[in-house]
């Protein structure tokens, strides 16, 4: 039975690798130089021109839980830089917008990964081969576009008379829970977990990893992200200064070539964490400053 399991385990892995290798051979992404600001906005007119690349997403079959059949099969990717900032436009079809996290629902998300050093394993980096991961989340976008998804937003018909120590009155907006007695019940917020913060600055989280299970929020947050859902699909921009002075800055810059990999999650299909579609490394070529 054990031998059978091993073969079963390897099968999807082999399948995934064959797809990825074929993909890598044909894909490279030109990062166009633009002589303007690079806004984190999918509606920016600059996105209307320039080359794009179709990135195939393969099953994640290396770390359990696997995702044997990713819902999102491909991303359309464009990228620009202005010498100071780099921005990626990621677009894909998704019939359902998933942006609210009830106990049994998940949100849409997309991420890109760049090695911090010269290279890194595709498995979210490896020991001493760190990867920088920029991760956009639809629920954070919802927090920013509307308001933080507190109980009153999630369950408009819910009513609670009292939360101990909570200031104010029903529905006791979480953003007013500033006294330590009330905040002791808000574990994630108090511990600085970015997911639990009611006042989100942007919908992208900057993360670092040295292999599966090591994903950690980067101490310094420089990336910004914005996603818009329209016409049955998402258009998401993730942007970051090329150089921030952070030791986790990738070795990217005008005229340089860096590997970039992508992942996407369809919240409607309960994809989250390791349950994701992943690409292989794509070669991103940053045009020199001034290049047309």
């Amino acid at each position: 039975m054990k031998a059978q399991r091993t073969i079963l385990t390897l099968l999807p892995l082999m399948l995934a690798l064959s797809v990825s290798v074929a993909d890598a051979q044909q894909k490279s992404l030109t990062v166009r130089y633009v002589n303007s600001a690079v806004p984190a906005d999918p509606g920016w007119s600059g996105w209307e021109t320039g080359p794009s690349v179709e990135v195939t997403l393969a099953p994640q079959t290396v770390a359990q839980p696997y995702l044997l059949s990713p819902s999102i099969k491909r991303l359309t990717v464009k990228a620009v830089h202005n010498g100071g900032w780099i921005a990626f436009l990621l677009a894909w079809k998704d019939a359902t917008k998933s942006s609210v996290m009830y106990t049994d629902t998940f949100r849409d998300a997309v991420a890109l990964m760049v090695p911090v050093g010269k290279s890194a394993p595709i498995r979210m980096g490896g020991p001493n081969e760190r990867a920088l991961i920029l991760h956009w989340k639809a629920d954070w976008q919802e927090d920013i576009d509307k308001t933080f998804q507190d109980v009153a937003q999630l369950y408009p018909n819910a009513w609670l008379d009292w939360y101990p120590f909570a200031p104010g009155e029903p529905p006791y907006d979480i953003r007013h829970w500033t006294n330590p007695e009330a905040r002791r019940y808000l574990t994630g917020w108090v511990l600085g977990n970015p997911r639990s913060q009611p006042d989100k600055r942007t919908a992208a989280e900057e993360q670092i990893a040295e292999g599966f299970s090591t994903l950690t929020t980067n101490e310094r947050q420089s990336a910004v992200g914005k996603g818009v859902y329209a016409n049955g699909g998402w258009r998401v921009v993730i942007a970051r200064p090329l150089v921030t002075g952070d030791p986790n800055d990738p070795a990217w810059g005008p005229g340089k070539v860096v590997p970039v990999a992508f992942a996407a999650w369809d919240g409607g299909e309960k994809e989250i964490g390791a349950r994701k579609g992943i690409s292989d490394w794509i070669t991103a070529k940053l045009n020199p400053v001034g290049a047309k």
Partner: protein
Amino acid sequence: MATVKNWQIGREMEYPYPESRPQRQFAAVFDLNKCIGCQTCTMACKTTWTVGKGQEYMQWNNVESKPYGGYPMGWDVRILDKLGPQPWEGGKYAGETIFEAAPTDERVLGYLKEELDWSHSNAGEDEPAGSLDTGGYETMPTHKLWFFYFPRICMHCTYPACLAACPREAIYKRPEDGIVLVDQGRCRGYRECVRACPYGKVLFNPVLRISQKCIGCYPAVEQGIQPRCVTSCIGKVRLMGFLSTPDDVKPDRPIDFLVHVKKVALPLYPQLGLEGNIYYIPPVNVPKEFLRQMFGPGVDQAIETYLKGKDDPELLGLLHLFGDTKEIIESFKTFRESGEAAGYDKKEREVVRVPIKEPDYLRPFFDAARQVYRHNIS
């Protein structure tokens, strides 16, 4: 997968991480014959730990009625159904655990509980199984018409499925007491733990967007105090302490005595393979077939021993120490001469002493001194 020893199923099994037992293991015994379903434990837990935002629906401690109740709904029958019929061979489990039966793409056999599953914690309350024919009557001890209250907290398992399933390694088991915790700073709300825990004891906080669970009242335990659900129990159903492995039994340790020496307290669904550390004295009125499925092959012996408890001064003495002190009882003694039982803390100080049998007082119907008649004296 590593091979680890799980004494509850009498064999080795596969688990994602190597065996790593804590220095001491948080454990408790719940006597199901005494629970009256008053939910005082639930309220004690609720008002202590889950009164924050996103915790409105959470019951880290809950009391459901068996056979029909469940929080989350159907947690037991659903995982049993997924696992399918599985055999025991005597004291050894010959079937597959939820780690061994996991599909190729998962670490643990489980399922994602739906929002509605958490929305009916009182479903099935007080609903009995079976029926009595016209003119029928109950016989002791097993009833034809039966139900029982079933208090539950996190099992603080030796092999937690939540910990096994977390791809972020955000769940850890404390080496000092075996309490299992979700790192609230590291959790990303993937809910792999919610899927994996067969007991349904990890819950997602939709406001903070991270998972949360029973913390074993560790701030109290660190000070030698039993958890809130234990000390608040008005039925004196519960006793919390520490449990040794079967090869290192300390007979004067209360939980060791009940679990390993007398074997009156049994694991819950041991066939799932988690080696949970909340043990139950099975209810004597319930058909054995049902109990064997829940508590494994030790049911018949446990009930027999329990029913003979009145003739066993040590067992009777220890059962009288349930709910009589907030201190964690590290060791206990019974005194036949005085008819008392006593419990001792970590420093071997006596923290509680109770009579095993309350003295009887017979008062005459007519009180000559006060010139009154007594009636309905209790």
